[in-house]
């Protein structure tokens, strides 16, 4: 199986997923009776009337979590090539990766000591 043939599987999954969504939407439109009223068209929010608009501001505290997530996401990206070559790299690779992760754990320790991860 060549490179592009192996991605045919991915393509088939994408096509099937899109098809499933399309079929479900069309079926729902075709089968469901349509009798809208003001109450039915209002946004569902746990059964009570919705408060405020959907385009609201979020809490600034989430931003720091997002920032930390980007850093550790990039760290995770470097782990993948190592994981693929795990056996041939052996002990040396393991120690190198532990040093790499260790340095970034220092950052996590710093964040915890600073109280960044504490929710108040």
């Amino acid at each position, binding site marked *: 199986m060549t490179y*592009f043939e192996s991605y045919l599987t991915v393509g088939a999954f994408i096509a099937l997923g899109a098809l499933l969504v399309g079929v479900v939407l069309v079926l729902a439109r075709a089968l469901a009776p349509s009798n809208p009223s003001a109450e039915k068209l209002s946004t569902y929010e746990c059964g009570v009337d919705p408060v405020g608009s959907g385009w609201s*501001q979020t809490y600034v505290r989430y931003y720091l979590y997002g*920032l930390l997530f980007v850093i550790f*996401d*990039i760290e995770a*990206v470097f782990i993948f*090539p190592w994981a693929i070559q795990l056996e041939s790299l052996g002990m040396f690779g393991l120690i190198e990766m532990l040093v790499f992760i260790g340095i*970034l754990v220092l950052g996590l320790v710093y*964040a915890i000591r600073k109280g*960044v991860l504490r929710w108040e």
Partner: protein
Amino acid sequence: MTVDAWIAEPVNWVFSIVAVVILFTAVRVVTSPNVVHAALYLVAALAGSAVMFLLLSAEFVALVLVLVYIGAVLVLFLFGIMITRAPTGFDEGLSNDRKLVSAAISLVLLGVLSWASLSAFGTDTVNTVGSPTATEILGDAILGRFVIPFEVVSFILLSALIGGITVARRDLTPLEEEERKAV
């Protein structure tokens, strides 16, 4: 390559479709009247670029694009938009009247970049993936020959993390520190 040979290759079809999608979404990123929608069009443009990398047999770069850019950076963009703009609805004031100048500059940039890449790599062909795959070669390279730069990357990430925390978070005053300990 003749036109018939081009049409016979299914990879070229995928390339053309994805290229059109990238062009459309990239234009919508700058013309969309809603910043949240612009960020979501950027997701589509980046996903298209990931497919382009897949077509070039660069699987690792494609997945990094999905993981880091779509998974993390775009989330940060959306947070940034939702924190700073309220309400984040439609905004007619996003465009200004210097569209022609920016379009001209973009075209010049496109020309320079195309010329540079064609003159540097115009005759190269991309090797299709065999064994070892590109990711395996990369793993050997970053933990073999480039192991010191790889460890330096962890220091760069550490400094980015500490810098981000320092910029984004104000230190507590001694009084507030006391209050927190008391709780």
